[in-house]
């Protein structure tokens, strides 16, 4: 057993992602506008703050969209909507269902992210004080996503219902400077994402043996001092339950197929996770498809599913998705990647790290939740707003490994965005050295 004398420096900072009794009470009688409302309310101040920096205090007037004119440049604060013709909609799908209702969806190549086809009608809209305008001018489809809150400096265009943007003001980025006094120690934290166990032994064989190989490797490389492993979901194959428009429509068009989440997959997950706990702490964060609610922010996987991991030492943490924690004063934010996938669908230009960089810019982990990413109907708060920008933002289940340092402000603060691929496909595990904050990854291929 490795000494745990330093583990006291670990802090779980995911409180905001857990649903409170207040959140849960009557939740499903709500509508989503309450969540958008809460988002805009809490970001408004930060947008104004940034506007003062960018435009200069007293150089602008912040007004309601109803008071915007064609003559004077003003600032309006509201929410951006990215209108994409190809975005799936239940109503549209239902209309054309006759043609597709019975089609076999399973033939679809799973895993590859499908981006929406671009259409000449795609455009941006902006909603503020119950008014909606079309956006034109100095703003691009590649700058934003549906659900982003921003301030727009500009005036009404010549055409009716069009706002000419001169400048976009994003919310002020909140940074917590790293406490440099914290002692640096040689310690490594590992991240793995997308185990996606299906419960079918043959299918899972490669993943399991590769993961076990990682376990053995850990024992051999003890001097690396890997003290913590963060497992990003989904650990259970989520092809079982669809979470897209088509699957909803399928239940309406009778073409639904009854499928069950495999208990075998759960048993296997329980086993491989508990086998590691001799050597390190394990944080198990959920993903869509895991045995827990699939609405973002996701609660932890339920303990009843992993009985063995619960019996071992107190080293398995069941945590939320997104998951935020700090180790030695360094802030980490991880997600299982659905938020980024959802953004990527809306823009052909972005890579995973581009989308993550944008999230930092927008100060929101998942602006498209709940619009296209299933979200919990919150009432008076939006837990997915980035209230303190992490030092590391890690996103699982992406197409490849990428690292990008993003400068946060004019000072030296940066945030490192890292995307990691699914373990089930790539056998890749990410290592982050806390001493020098370097990143490395390693492939644990063991398919024999």
């Amino acid at each position: 057993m490795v000494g745990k004398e330093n583990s006291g420096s670990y802090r779980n900072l995911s409180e905001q992602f857990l649903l409170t009794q207040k959140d849960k009470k009557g939740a499903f009688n709500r509508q989503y506008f309450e969540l958008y409302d809460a988002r805009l309310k809490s970001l408004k101040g930060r947008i104004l703050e940034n506007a003062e920096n960018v435009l200069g205090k007293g150089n602008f007037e912040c007004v309601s969209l109803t008071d915007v004119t064609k003559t004077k440049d003003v600032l309006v604060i509201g929410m951006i909507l990215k209108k994409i013709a190809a975005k799936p909609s239940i109503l549209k799908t239902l209309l054309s269902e006759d043609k597709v209702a019975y089609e076999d969806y399973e033939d679809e190549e799973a895993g590859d992210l499908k981006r929406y086809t671009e259409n000449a009608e795609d455009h941006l809209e902006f909603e503020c004080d119950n008014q909606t305008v079309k956006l034109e001018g100095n703003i691009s489809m590649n700058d934003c996503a549906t659900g982003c809150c921003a301030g727009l400096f500009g005036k009404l265009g010549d055409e009716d219902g069009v706002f000419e943007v001169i400048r976009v003001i994003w919310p002020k980025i909140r940074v917590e400077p790293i406490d440099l006094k914290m002692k640096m120690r040689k310690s490594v934290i590992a991240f793995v994402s997308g185990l996606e166990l299906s419960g079918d032994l043959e299918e899972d064989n490669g993943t399991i043996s590769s993961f076990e190989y990682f376990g053995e490797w850990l024992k051999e490389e003890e001097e690396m001092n890997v003290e913590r492993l963060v497992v990003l979901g989904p650990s259970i194959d989520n092809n079982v339950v669809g979470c897209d428009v088509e699957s909803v429509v399928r239940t309406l068009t009778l073409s639904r197929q009854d499928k069950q989440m495999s208990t075998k997959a759960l048993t296997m997950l329980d086993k491989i996770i508990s086998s590691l706990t001799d050597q390190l702490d394990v944080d198990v964060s959920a993903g869509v498809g895991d045995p827990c609610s699939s609405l973002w922010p996701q609660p932890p996987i339920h303990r009843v599913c992993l009985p063995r991991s619960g019996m071992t030492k107190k080293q398995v943490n069941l945590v939320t998705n997104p998951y935020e924690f700090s180790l030695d004063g360094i802030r980490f934010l991880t997600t299982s990647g659905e938020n980024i996938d959802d953004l990527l669908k809306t823009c052909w230009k972005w890579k995973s790290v581009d989308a993550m960089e944008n999230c930092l810019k927008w100060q929101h982990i998942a602006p498209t939740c709940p619009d296209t990413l299933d979200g919990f109907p919150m009432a008076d708060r939006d837990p997915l707003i980035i209230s303190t920008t992490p030092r590391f933002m890690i996103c699982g289940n992406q197409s490849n490994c990428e690292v990008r340092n993003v400068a946060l402000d004019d000072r030296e603060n940066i945030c490192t965005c890292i995307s990691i691929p699914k373990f089930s496909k790539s056998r890749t595990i990410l290592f982050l050295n806390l001493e020098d904050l370097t990143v490395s990854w390693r492939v644990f291929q063991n398919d024999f």
Partner: protein
Amino acid sequence: MASNKRIGGATFQPTVKRKRESDEFEKQYVPNFENDLSENIKIDKSKWARPAVDKQLGISKNIACQVLEVETYYEAANGSGYDRTNAKIYGVTRAGNSICVIVTDYFPHFYFQAPSGFGVEHIGQAQNAICNAIASQIKRGPGNAQLSGTVVDNLVHIEIVHGENLYYFRGADTKVPFIKVTGTTNALHKARTELKSGINLMGKGPVNIGNLYESNIDAEVKFMAKTGIVGCGWIEIPAGKCDMIKEKDKASRCQIEVSVSVRDLIVHESDGEWADIAPIRTLSFDIECIGRRGVFPEATMDPIIQIANMIKIEGETEPFVRNCFVLGTCAPVVGSSIIECVNEKLLLEKWAEFIREVDPDIITGYNILNFDLPYILDRAKVLKLPMVSHLGRQKDKGSVIRDAAISSKQMGSRVNKNIDIHGRIIFDVLQVVLRDYKLRSYTLNSVSYQFLSEQKEDVEHNIIPDLQRGNEQTRRRLAMYCLKDALLPLRLLDKLMSIINYIEMARVTGVPMNYLLTRGQQIKILSMMLRRCKANNFFLPVIESSGGDGESYEGATVIDPIRGFYNEPIATLDFASLYPSIMIAHNLCYTTLLKSPNGVENEDYIRTPSGQYFATQNRRKGLLPIILEDLLAARKRAKNDLKNEKDEFRKMVFNGRQLALKISANSVYGFTGATVGKLPCLEISQSVTSFGRKMIDMTKSEVERIYKKGAMNGKCPADAKVIYGDTDSVMVKFGVETVAQAMEIGLHAATEVSKIFTPPIKLEFEKVYFPYLLINKKRYAGLYFTKPDIHDKMDCKGLETVRRDNCPLVAKVLGICLEKLLIDRDEQSALDFAKKTIGDLLCNKIDISLLIISKELTKSGDKYQAKQAHVELAARMKKRDPGSAPRLGDRVPYVFVAAAKNVPAYERAEDPAFVLSNNIPIDTKHYLTNQLAKPLARIFEPILGDRAEKILVEGEHTRVRTVVQSKVGGLAAFTKKSATCLGCKSVLPKSDAENAICQHCQPKLPEIFSQRLNNLHELETKFARLWTECQNCAKTMQEKVNCSARDCPIYYMRDKIRNDIEESSQVIERFGDPTFFN
């Protein structure tokens, strides 16, 4: 405003008591804005006016305009002149100016056959006799008019013309003398009655003149036929030959008013540059009115609070004026102008001014004809605002409402309002959709969903008062709905290309555009007949309508189907435009009909299979064949033009035209068969169908004779067999294996067999069905191939997939089964699917929206003969909540709920929303036996044989059923819940009641949990997708969705999901905190 209203209210509500009630109401539900707004409002009118008029028009430049509306009017004699009936043409010029053309020197006419011996010398005597008879009739009438001598002398004019009764062939070119009577409509009307009773025409005592001709045809139609003007066609007024009427003398509100003699008018054929469409202004509007609680707004009491308007120029994509007249203060809407009015009076007056100023040519909206427009006009009466009814282009005439019954085979009978807005066309989108499309529901919401794949947020009438009473923000919200409701009709018209199609139809048939919406099919054919008859001097007799159904005749036959599932290509031979071709080929016409055969059969005359005789072409070419030939040739040309045209807008014009031509050609046959019509001739229609029947039989024997085994150099592998034939198509089994082979033989057969028919009757080969499921007469399904390699579509005829009187489940299941049968050719999976669905149905897993049946509430309960489910339900809902209960004309959605055994079906219908909120069990058995069983059995019978229904309804899959506990009635109040194990359902002991499962199930905990969770996942996704869909559909992220669109496919679903997910997540809660206790 308040005082005004009370006066108005008093006239309409004579009893004192009610008046007082309405006062109280008014105070309650209509807030007062006198403090916030003033009577003087500034309105930005910059975009309203039409372009300025070229001063040279009519002086040095000809005026060309497109004809939109035509009306005739009476002009009394002034001094020296005599009474006239003039025509007024409203139109638009190329520059977008509105114009009113007064056409003078036109007189309506009718004919009668000259009595024998009547010669030119009798004209003076006859004219005097008729004029005097009319004059004395006028003097006898009310008013005792003093008529000057000139007037009396010129009441009617008569002349001798040579012509012929349209009916019957009496030998070649036997034109006989007719007397043509011309005069004002009024005088003609009187002349008719006088002539009927006998007038001394030749100075030898009263003459009985028998039948009149063309006296029963509208003056407008006669005017247009006479001048050659067609609806929406172009006319030109030559410069200098017209009288430009000065602004102060104008009788119309058009920019240009000009008077021209009928002789100088130039009429253009709709070709070349004259095929264009002028920049027509279309106004779409929608009103919102505030209702008292539980009552649908009534014009006598409930004020209008908003009117939204959109104006667009035909051919452009976006409206150039968007505004909304609002009662009270209202926050601005970006992109639209909001006109705040202090009271309803001002609102209506400003709106009417707006209409007069923007001067739209077409007024559209959704159900404006029967709701919005009458409501506005009624309100104007109540509030005593005469100018508000002046919406038309005639200065001296307000618009009035009349009830008009319209009945046609195509749409059944219905009563519409008829509103005359002089010079403007009322083009109600609802009427267009009702006429041209068969839908499950005709609400704006459902229609826009069908055609624009877009929904709108539907606000319930009940919340309108709340929104109006709220603040400027809530009224703004209301304005947003209102604006959207005004915009959607425009978008629908664009999408359906209705305006263009109707313009082309008007041009082809010659009638004014508004006739197409307000009149039946017949007027179109009549107009075409009249034009053709005029050229050939045939006169249309007045036929007394026989009233009832009259004699019926045998319809189109079918060759009895050889039922079955054909897993081989079936070729289809079709007769192209069958009925028109028959009429052309056999020269069937009024003018060729023979009373008795005369001459040599087949040379001078033919005998039709139904036993009628017609003269051959050698003797006389019929008029109908000529009309039809023209129509078909014109259609060919239009199709050709369509092919060569590059410009999208003009392409639409040509497509509209070819469609209009096709429809017109096909309706000629129906015209001759309409016994209540103007020109019935059953001899023709009988002969047409009998020829049709004979030809189908001939085709069958010819195909089976030629394509025997080994025919076509051995290409025919077996004897051809005709398995079915109907009206104009014959299905042939050639015994080949591939679609390509079937196509080759089919093509060959079409040419070969066509040889036995008289041209232009022609068989065409265009499609192969493979496989083909022939269920019964007019019921079949198949995969439709027009090219050998891939099918175009699945074609279903007469099956419940397309019928509207079933619940959607039937159509869906049938559709999927057919696809599995026909496309996948997997009988087993089709059957499995059917069984699974039946299983799901019995286990209550089918979404309620799939089980909803809806019927229109056409009359109140006691007027129906037998008790009907939807009527009974409407009455029950009224008792529960009068406000939300369906009203007359609404479609009532319902589902069948479980009840005791002998409760009749009509009492088991229930409101789906009520069912959802009270968890009432559905009568799944009813759905199985009364809805699903028969249609499913039908499609499986050819495969499974007679056992099909039994297998489906009584098989293994029907054994498991789920019973739902109702929250209301029965034993619901007495049941008590106690905690049960989520695994084995055993009751948990009190000590364990907190736990999710019992001790015994402990080892299976992960499994039980994940099962429950699977269920939750599905619900969560549904919840999230459905509610974001609604949020998106409402087009706002920041406001609550208040939508009551009951025919939205997800309306019930999104409510159901709330209950389900709540329940399901509570179950998950029972498993406790997810994290380990540490």
